[in-house]
């Protein structure tokens, strides 16, 4: 326990209260017992003196009236001889007649007492008056020696007071010990929560026993675990989180944020906030944010770019936690890495712009030429040329729209599952090849279905046809008239692999792609040929890739700029037992080719 807060502590308060309560209680006890004691003593004394009164009344009164001095003296002597009486004086009216006192009676002032304790010198003075019809005719002054009773009383009083002090002391001691035990455990809790808030995880908690504090301690431990869980969650967050305490010190910073800030910010924990601001400003991309010099200016931006050293786009959300009085208690800085989102945003908007541009171009041709045809009279040849252009551009427009819709559908996955059927690709490939061979471009298509090896696979006919058409039309698009386009099949038997792979290879001798372009193939909206000389939306291969992936297959694309491109569409071969059944099912299936083609994926 680090330090005791003495002033206003629970222990001191309790002790003060105990003291006051005990004192009040004991005071009442003391005074009442003193009263009872003195009362009882007085009573006893009065009873004792009762007989004396009778004696005085019966013997002394007649003598005083008759002023028989001798008799008075005699009876006074007899009274003096009585226990405790040390002084006797008899008066007739106000004239003293006889005054007797014992040898031990000191010189003292006679004072009538009403209470035993008032007689401080140990003598209790009593006056007996002789009344006859309301007139005092004489009196007897008596002094009782009550030192013994008084001593008894005083002794009792002292003992009472002593007992009271003793009781108070014991009560204080017990309170001290009891509150000490309680405050120690409460202080343990306080210390633990301070230590935990400071980020230490090894804390000592009062969990022993069954009392309230122990159960509080257990509840506290429980809470701590939950807090730890939450911190663990914060630690796992891919977004940067920083908590700032009310005194502008960094109370928490998660690994993701440290990662963003880089190695320079390793020990930001517990440091003032300015350190974090400095670290953040140092990684800020100065080229983009030339005018941002302070963190406040940075916080006003929606997003900002940093380089760490790779470029990242961050979005900062700053939230102040206020206490009920409206003062800022702590602050939370949430830095979200939106590099990916902003990249996708940028790609989408770029794609939309491109798509709009690409759609407008054929539309412009269609509108312009039809306008010309409407207004002017041209010779047959020109009319034919224009009509052909209109037709070609309309078809172009249609293809683009189809591509756009397809990609939108695949992205939304609204097509649901594939309509898989067992069979071989021969028919599909044949159809596609016939279709593509019928196009404008006069490429030389080499496809020999009888020579190929048609393994049975599971596929969705329409989807695969679409993928194949995209690949084939790409091969045509990027080739010159008269170039060769070869379609053949491959079979790859991998040892230990779950299934064999059936490959459909489409090789062209067109313009090809550079390594850089190849890396981007299959990305949506990416066009290897950015010249725009070849129509397209940059979706063909993206679509094909998506479709082949849905079939658990993959596309293998190799290319050399200027030499041509080779696309292999790999699909898993269906199981062997099914192969047999499929063989019987498909009558047009030809026998496999002489030898399986060897594969070199780097070729």
């Amino acid at each position, binding site marked *: 326990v680090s330090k005791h807060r003495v002033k206003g502590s629970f222990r001191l308060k309790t002790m003060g209260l105990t003291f006051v309560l005990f004192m009040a209680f004991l005071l009442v006890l003391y005074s009442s017992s003193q009263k009872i004691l003195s009362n009882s003593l007085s009573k006893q004394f009065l009873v004792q003196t009762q007989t004396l009164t009778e004696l005085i009344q019966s013997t002394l009164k007649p003598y005083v009236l008759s002023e028989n001095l001798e008799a008075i003296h005699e009876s006074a002597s007899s009274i003096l001889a009585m226990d405790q009486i040390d002084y006797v004086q008899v008066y007739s009216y106000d004239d003293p007649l006889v005054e007797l006192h014992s040898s031990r009676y000191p010189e003292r002032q006679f004072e009538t007492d009403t209470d035993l304790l008032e007689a401080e010198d140990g003598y209790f003075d009593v006056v007996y008056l002789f009344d006859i019809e309301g007139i005092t005719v004489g009196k007897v002054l008596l002094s009782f020696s009550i030192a013994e009773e008084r001593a008894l009383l005083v002794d009792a009083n002292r003992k009472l007071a002593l007992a009271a002090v003793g009781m108070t002391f014991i009560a204080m001691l017990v309170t001290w010990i009891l509150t000490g035990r309680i405050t120690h455990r409460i202080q343990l809790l306080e210390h633990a929560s301070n230590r935990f808030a400071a980020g230490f995880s090894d804390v000592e908690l009062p969990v022993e026993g069954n009392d309230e504090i122990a159960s509080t301690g257990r509840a506290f431990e429980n809470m701590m675990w939950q807090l730890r869980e939450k911190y663990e969650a914060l630690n796992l967050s891919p977004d940067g989180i920083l908590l700032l305490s009310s005194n502008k010190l960094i109370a928490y910073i998660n690994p993701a944020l440290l990662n963003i800030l880089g190695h320079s910010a390793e020990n930001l924990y517990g440091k003032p906030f300015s350190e974090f601001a400095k670290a953040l400003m140092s990684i800020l991309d100065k080229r983009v944010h030339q005018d941002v010099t302070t963190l406040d200016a940075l916080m006003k931006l929606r997003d900002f770019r940093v380089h760490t050293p790779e470029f990242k786009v961050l979005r900062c959300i700053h939230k102040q936690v206020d206490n009920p009085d409206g003062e800022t208690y702590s602050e939370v800085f949430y830095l979200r890495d939106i590099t990916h989102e902003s990249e996708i945003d940028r790609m989408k908007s770029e794609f939309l*712009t491109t798509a*709009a*541009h*690409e*759609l*407008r*171009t*054929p*539309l*412009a*041709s*269609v*509108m*312009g*030429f039809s*306008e*010309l045809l409407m*207004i*002017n009279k041209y010779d047959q040849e020109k009319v034919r*040329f*224009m009509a052909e*252009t209109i037709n*070609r*551009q309309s078809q172009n427009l249609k293809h683009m729209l189809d591509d756009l819709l397809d990609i939108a559908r695949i992205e939304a996955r609204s097509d649901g599952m594939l309509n898989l059927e067992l069979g071989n690709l021969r028919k599909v490939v044949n159809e596609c090849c016939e279709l593509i061979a019928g196009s404008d471009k006069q490429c030389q298509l080499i496809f020999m279905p009888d020579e190929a090896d048609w393994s049975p696979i599971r596929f969705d006919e329409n989807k695969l046809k679409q993928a194949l058409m995209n690949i084939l039309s790409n091969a045509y698009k990027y080739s010159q008239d008269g170039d060769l386009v070869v379609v053949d099949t491959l079979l790859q038997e991998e040892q230990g692999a779950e299934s064999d792979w059936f490959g459909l290879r489409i090789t062209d001798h067109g313009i090809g792609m550079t390594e850089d372009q190849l890396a981007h193939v299959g990305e949506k909206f990416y066009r290897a040929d*950015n*010249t*725009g*000389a070849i129509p397209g939306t940059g979706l063909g291969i993206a679509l094909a890739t998506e479709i082949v992936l849905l079939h658990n297959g993959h596309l293998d694309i190799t290319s050399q700029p200027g030499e041509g491109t080779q696309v292999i569409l790999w699909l898993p071969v269906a199981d062997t037992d099914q192969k047999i059944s499929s063989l019987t099912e498909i009558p047009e299936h030809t026998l496999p080719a002489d030898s399986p083609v060897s594969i070199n994926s780097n070729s």
Partner: protein
Amino acid sequence: LKWHDASDPIKNRINVNTEKKYTRLRETDIHPADLRDRQLFMQQVGICAETLALWHRSGMICVVDNAVGISHHWSITELQILVTKIRHDYREWLRHRNRLEHRKILVVEDDTDLRHLYEFQIQEMREDDWVHCVSDGAEALFSMGAVKPDIIICDLKMPGMDGFHMLDVLADTGYLRDCKKIIITGMQRQVLDKRFTLPDSVSVLTKPVDFDALHATINTAMAPNLLQREKAI
């Protein structure tokens, strides 16, 4: 295309960039020591200093210490042929026309069909107009010196050198300052404004083109020009 004339003295000095990655250069990027080579180049190809500056600024030709690393070159001869052909075409056409009446229009558009369309449309409007179509900014800049067009109709998004780059270089060099520039683009005006600050003299039409508007723009632009030419003669 590669160099094939080994005896060419400036073989390793001036290269024509056909990689279609153009970076605009400033006047100061040419070292004074290259001036002699520039003279020779101009003589050989048959172009004036203005044209050379235009080509250079656009990044189409660049001066390098050696040709290593640049895979595509145009020979001087080929440049000569290119320039001569454009000039020849123009002169042939000019021979049969009234010098006063015709207008020279340069169309820069990457889409073949649209090029045809513009040609048809413009000739439909005025048979005497000379229309020269090119497919990108670089080609346009190649022919500009020879043709000196009155009007440039250009697309913005084009393969190779795009319209932005071409107009930028023209604005930069002040070449053909009096020439009316008309942009025909598929881009929306807001997107365009965000990327490019156009001078007021440049008209913008969006695809699909309203040809009446195009004709009107050409006519208003040409009216003072024709008047001036009349006066000069």
